[in-house]
């Protein structure tokens, strides 16, 4: 993935291939141009449902991998769970279906200024963007360790990739069907201590990000968390995707996770207040 952040593109994409990975689907989309600009942690927004759909909103997906070369002139890959109408539609599509792609969107994970030891924490399909990140970090000479968690082994994504790339790879599942039974934060402290972690990168459900932030905080290290808020536009114009985040000036604002995120510093997000407007937020009702 390239380093420059440029403006997002809107391109007529096309399904190149699609197959199941455990409980998820792995989709490869031809999306010329998007790949060249994408950086780890960014996402794409896809228009799903075809010409006569009753679905009016795009769906956001973290970019798993990109390839900028080859006969297709740029592909973008995502890992998704088929849950609602849009993703179920996507799961029914075969090669050549056209999918309008907007991306890359959002602020990527920021690499550490210096060579550092990075621990990457993923929950469910949330681990998808971590492998491109790991590659980038390793290219900069960083040490990379993984903590991957999921409800069950079929929802664990990328454990093999992680083993290939990570120094330590700790796996947890809620039901114990793979790795340690429990949550990622049950094993994270041990990994941080063994790895001498300087920075944590995390992507997964809100509750996990919050818990990861708490652990990172307790070690006095930063956590870069990629959040997942309901998004209507993904490009910053609708104000649906906000969450309370403290700024450099200490003031809490309801910020758009699609353009000011999805990656936030964990200690800036007011996790306990997500889903509310804190009384001390800028412009809060008095």
């Amino acid at each position: 993935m390239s380093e420059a952040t440029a403006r997002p593109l809107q391109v007529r994409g096309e399904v190149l291939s699609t197959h199941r990975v455990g409980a998820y689907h792995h989709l490869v989309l031809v999306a010329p141009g998007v790949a060249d600009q994408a950086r780890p942690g960014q996402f794409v927004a896809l228009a799903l449902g075809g010409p006569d759909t009753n679905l009016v909103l795009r769906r956001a997906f973290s970019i798993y991998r990109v390839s900028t070369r080859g006969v297709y002139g740029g592909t973008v890959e995502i890992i998704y769970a088929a849950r609602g109408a849009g993703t179920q539609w996507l799961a029914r599509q075969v090669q050549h279906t056209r999918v309008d792609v907007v991306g890359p969107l959002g602020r990527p994970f920021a690499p550490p200024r210096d060579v550092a030891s990075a621990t990457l924490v993923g929950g469910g399909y949330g681990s998808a963007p971590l492998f491109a990140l790991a590659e980038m970090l390793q290219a900069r000479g960083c040490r990379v360790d993984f903590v991957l968690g999921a409800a069950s082994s079929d929802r664990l994504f990328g454990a093999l990739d992680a083993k290939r790339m990570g120094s330590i790879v700790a796996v947890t599942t809620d039901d114990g069907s793979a790795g340690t039974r429990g949550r990622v934060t049950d094993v994270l402290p041990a990994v941080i201590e063994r790895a001498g972690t300087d920075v944590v990168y995390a992507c997964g459900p809100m509750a996990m990000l919050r818990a990861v932030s708490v652990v990172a905080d307790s070690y006095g290290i930063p956590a870069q968390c990629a959040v997942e808020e309901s998004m209507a536009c993904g490009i910053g114009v609708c104000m649906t995707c906000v969450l309370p985040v403290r700024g450099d000036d200490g003031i809490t604002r309801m910020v758009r996770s699609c353009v000011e995120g999805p990656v936030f510093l964990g200690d800036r997000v007011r996790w306990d207040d997500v889903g509310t407007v804190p009384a001390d937020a800028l412009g809060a009702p008095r």
Partner: protein
Amino acid sequence: MTFSVRTVPAPTAPAEPACDVTTRLGPVTLPNPVLTASGCAAAGRELDQFFDVTQLGAVVTKSIQLAARSGRPTPRMAETPSGMLNSIGLQGPGIDDFLAKDLSWLRERGARTVVSIAGSSVEDYATLARRLRRADGVTAIEVNISCPNVADRGLVFACDPVAAGDVVAAVRHETDAAVPVFAKLSPDVTDIVAVARACVEAGADGLSMINTLLGMALDLDTMRPVLAGVTGGLSGPAIRPVAVRCIWQVHAALPDVPIIGMGGVRSGLDALEMVLAGASAVSVGTAVFNDPGAPPRVLHELVVALAERGFDRLSDAVGFAHRGPA
């Protein structure tokens, strides 16, 4: 482009207009009739990444209030069949920040700007208009009267012809005559023509319609309202038949009053439907969320559709469906 549209010509840059698409909104003439819809384009900057916002008739800004507002808690949206509900709660910077950062950017960029304003008292609106009078780069003012009136137990201004008229009169009074004032009407009323008439009598140069319909959705897992705000505004293609009816009724009653039509426009043919019903301009709202390139595409498709139907001038098509083919 994979959005549900009634026609999909090649999504290219607007073609050389085959017909004169300039449109008059009271004292102002716009180069073309396609605008963004308030709250669906922020202040234009984000969309400028996808297309040149100076190509549009104008950018209509998110409704601005006196002070910064944090809006409502999340969830703020729910998708519904061919539509969506939102309860943003008018989050935005106050007028000062808006003038300093947003309006100045739009002016420098060379875009025409319709500034949407919102308040909770007649005085709020008057103050906002006064502040805008001193600002450069305001092409028109759209008065969002779908706001609760604190002085009247939270009754929405747009639901009462008298309150609506009071707001419009106050804004008109504070605004330069060269800047048209459009009142934005709510469809959630028994008699939209009565509200339209009251606004025009109070000095509105034109009318924007429609704002969202009040709707709601329940989450069937939690068995509670999806939206933190409980109810929300319904927008998108689902409401287009209601929008066309409102435009039709108001244009029939007040044929000389320019209308900015909106509500579910996704394609040039949708825009044409509103023009034929009586709209002199058309705002593209929810469709932008599905297709950030929608506004210029709609313009291009509208130009093609007008030309195909033999219209040399957009103005000849405005309200044409009331008259019928010769």
